[in-house]
């Protein structure tokens, strides 16, 4: 069983559309994250949830809205997609909130906005 799974793996869409990426972890962790990796492989945190509560919210356009229905799931919804949103989005989880714990990453969702 995959520990952190994301769907879809690839997402190709037009500018202006709304799309969602889903993430699930079966590790029993309380903390989940969304990261964005740009075309130069630079990786930056977007959001973090601890037990369904938002604890980190970086400077991200409000077109991006995370939702955590339970502590095993963290979804990312993006409204009005723009060309600059094209990137690989990674979900991760960890047993400890606050960056001291090991983070377990999903395989990524490659978003291409045309």
């Amino acid at each position: 069983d995959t520990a952190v799974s994301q769907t879809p793996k690839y997402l190709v869409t037009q500018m202006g559309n709304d799309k969602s990426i889903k993430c699930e972890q079966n590790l029993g962790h309380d903390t989940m994250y969304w990261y964005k990796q740009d075309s130069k492989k630079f990786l930056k945190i977007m959001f973090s949830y601890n037990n369904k509560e938002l604890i980190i919210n970086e400077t991200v356009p409000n077109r991006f809205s995370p939702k955590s229905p339970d502590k095993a799931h963290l979804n990312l919804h993006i409204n009005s997609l723009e060309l600059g949103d094209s990137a690989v989005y990674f979900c991760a989880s960890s047993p400890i909130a606050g960056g001291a714990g090991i983070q377990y990453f999903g395989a990524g969702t490659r978003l291409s906005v045309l």
Partner: protein
Amino acid sequence: AQSVAQPEDQVNVAEGNPLTVKCTYSVSGNPYLFWYVQYPNRGLQFLLKYITGDNLVKGSYGFEAEFNKSQTSFHLKKPSALVSDSALYFCAVRDEGNKLVFGAGTILRVKS
């Protein structure tokens, strides 16, 4: 602000030779430092971390890293490189906002 720097975009090494991937850090207080590896089309995988204790940290796949406070470095090392070690390596530090801040990454190419 806490940060890490990886001064080399790419490191090339021959199989069987020792490898070093460099990382320097800038933090206030005691650093929490990490190394992660990313294989093509995969998510990041944890290799090792330093929080406190011995300056030489051993991790997965035969990797180790040495914490050097005077040089503010946390270089990743392996005594004998394998072709399968070829990947993108990230150094990271926990910042004052309790989140991980990653370096720009270093591509490691091991040639047979």
